[in-house]
């Protein structure tokens, strides 16, 4: 297949995943704030940090209240990382590669984009917002489902998945990084119910709560959540799952160059070897930063290997 289209599909995969992850983040943060005790709030500013947009945000807003952050993350057309922009990029990248995909996918993407244009106007009522984001997650899943059910699993499909899993792994590490900090001062070794709530919100933002309970029957604790979301090989939003998927996908691509594959297996080793018990605060941040940097480097290598010759 054409290198240019492979690159378009890769970015389509990334942007659509980003749109879905942003929707999850905003909804879960709203939920978390509702569950925390009066006087304590998870705030909204962490979401700006999760998405790596702190600088752009500060240029535009003096305070990081719900209205500003939500608007910035969802509807701001000048923020290239916003949900609205992600939908547009997901669609534009698909536009040029549409002849490789089942026609329904383009129709669904178009409908989703138009829905986003209509709804994401900057003064979205909270109740409406929640419903819209829930729907959007389902719409993204519908596209993924149509691809799975109707598209030949050829290289075009592979590149969509590569984009999707790279983005997803990246987003999971970002959520862990920012949400891994304790919201409440620690009194003793007892788990407070609120700490539990905090980690539940992390799980829920990844639709991981139910699956987590099936794997880890104990009550929700930071370490177990971290282990689950980093190392579990069956849950499709865990970092290890994404890395395994990437390993298979990259191994199936044409060419003799295996630098990207080596990069991914190195990441897997690192993730298996690192000690997770008691990991929080700064060391956790550093590990997540490291994973993000390695994932970004993988993106660069993929580009050099298959998109530019």
């Amino acid at each position, binding site marked *: *297949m*054409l*290198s*240019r*289209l*492979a690159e378009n599909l890769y970015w389509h995969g990334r942007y659509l995943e980003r749109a879905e992850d942003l929707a999850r983040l905003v909804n879960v943060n709203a939920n978390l704030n509702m569950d925390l005790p009066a006087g304590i709030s998870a705030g909204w500013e962490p979401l700006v940090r999760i998405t790596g947009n702190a600088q752009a945000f500060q240029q535009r807003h003096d305070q990081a209240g719900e209205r500003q952050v939500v608007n910035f993350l969802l509807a701001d057309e000048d923020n290239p990382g916003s949900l609205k922009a992600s939908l547009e990029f997901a669609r*534009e990248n698909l*536009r*040029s590669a*549409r*002849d*490789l995909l089942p*026609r329904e996918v*383009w*129709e669904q993407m*178009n*409908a989703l984009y*138009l829905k986003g244009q209509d709804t994401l106007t900057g003064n979205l009522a909270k109740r409406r917002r929640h419903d819209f984001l829930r729907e959007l997650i389902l719409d993204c899943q519908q596209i993924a489902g149509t691809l799975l059910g109707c598209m030949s699993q050829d*290289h075009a499909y592979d590149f969509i998945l590569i984009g999707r899993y790279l983005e997803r792994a990246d987003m999971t590490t970002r959520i862990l990084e920012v949400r891994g900090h304790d919201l409440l001062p620690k009194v003793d070794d007892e788990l407070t119910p609120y700490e539990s709530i905090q980690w539940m919100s992390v799980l829920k933002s990844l639709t991981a709560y139910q699956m987590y309970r099936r794997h880890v029957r104990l009550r929700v604790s930071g370490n177990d959540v971290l282990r689950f979301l980093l190392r579990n090989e069956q849950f499709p939003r865990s970092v290890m799952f994404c890395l395994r998927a990437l390993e298979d996908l990259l191994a199936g*691509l*044409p*060419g003799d160059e295996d630098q990207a594959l080596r990069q991914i297996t190195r990441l897997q080793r690192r993730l298996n070897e690192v000690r997770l018990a008691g990991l929080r605060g700064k060391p956790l941040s550093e590990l997540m930063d490291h994973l993000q940097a390695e994932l970004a480097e993988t993106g660069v290598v993929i580009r050099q290997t*298959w998109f530019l*010759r």
Partner: protein
Amino acid sequence: MDLNNYSSNDFHDELIGPGGRPRAAARAIWKYLKGLDSEEVAERKAACELAAMVAGITFRVYFEDTGIDRAMPFDLIPRVISASEWQEVERGLKQRVQALNLFIDDLYNDQRIIADGVFPAEMLEGSENFREQCRGFSPPLGIWAHICGSDIVRDGDGTLYVLEDNLRIPSGVSYMLENRQVMKRVFPELFEDSGIQPIDEYPSQLYDTLASLSPRPADYPTVVVLTPGMYNSAYFEHAYLAQQMGVELVEGRDLVVNENDEVMMRTIAGLEPVDVIYRRIDDAFIDPEVFRPDSMLGVPGLMRAWRSGKVALANAPGAGVADDKVVYAWLPEIIRYYLDEDPLIANVPTWKCSEPEDLKYVLANIGELVIKPANESGGYGMLIGPRSTKKEQREFARLIKADPRNYIAQPTLALSTCPTFIQGRVSPRHVDLRPFILSGQQTYVTNGGLTRVALKAGSLVVNSSQGGGSKDTWIVETGN
């Protein structure tokens, strides 16, 4: 739908005949539309718009440098033509395109038609689309214009005329195909029992035509569609056709010509050979080595590859020489010269001011005629006789006398109308028709074509960038 008061105001109407009765081929649709109540009409109209929007039938409009999408206006009342009439048109179009291809091949080689005194040499000299770089070469099968889109109009007396033949990169066929898809979704019951001829085979016909040009006939040919990119106004069509044919849609930067003059495309597995290019980029931009050196859209070396027979280009570079107004005026003579046949479908009567008899007529009737500069590069405007002042007419008469061979003249036509749904009412609007003719080892004409409709009352401008819309076109068996 309230159709009782419909009147085409003395214009020939495509659906309604004398006495306000529907023509034979349009009876079924007319009866059906009449039976719809206003709610059902609104429902179908909305379904049309939604289907068109969702399918992405949009063309790009440039607005402050940001491409925005606008739904292509689509009218839900189809234009209907009887199968028996269409058969005649089809034969006429095939004849035309066959003659045009022989003509182009002759112009770039022996120029017999000029030597035999049928086509004047000086007409060629001013032609903007004659490519010196194509001299002394004949592409596979001798065919230059593999894809032709001819514009047909119907005059007040019901006669169909070809208004022009687009031999460079005619567009619009994707709208024809998409319109049909939309109509099938919205009016499924009509398609079940109305004897409407299908049009869906166009993409596979196009593929067969292109594949038949491959320089490597023994292998599976690699066919690609070459687009200027997604910001081109017809990009939707390029993508659509590539998808429907199951071939790659490439841009200039995806292709490279190697030292053996072979065209290769850049893929994730490295460079792969290309056999046939359906190019949707103008001649001037396809190869910066030969034509415009500043072109970022083309492929350096493409002409080298083409002339050495390593790759087929459709349409061939230089094919446009036969679609300017000079050639149009000579088409009846061209058909007789190469085919020894009379034209089966009429040209709009055209007076060539270079001919003394014609000149006399044009000067005497200048107030009723449309005067066009024959040579596109002339830089003079047109004169529409009935809408011009005496002073303008005198000025044009002077220009014509000074340089008669630079002018042609045609009568003003009373374009036919078709009932069109405008703001909740059915009103007459002027239409034209663009069928597509494919020439390879075989010749194929679409069943109907793209009907374009001028949505403004009285307007004759059907162009989509200027408020024109389109309709589905039905070729219907009438049984008698």
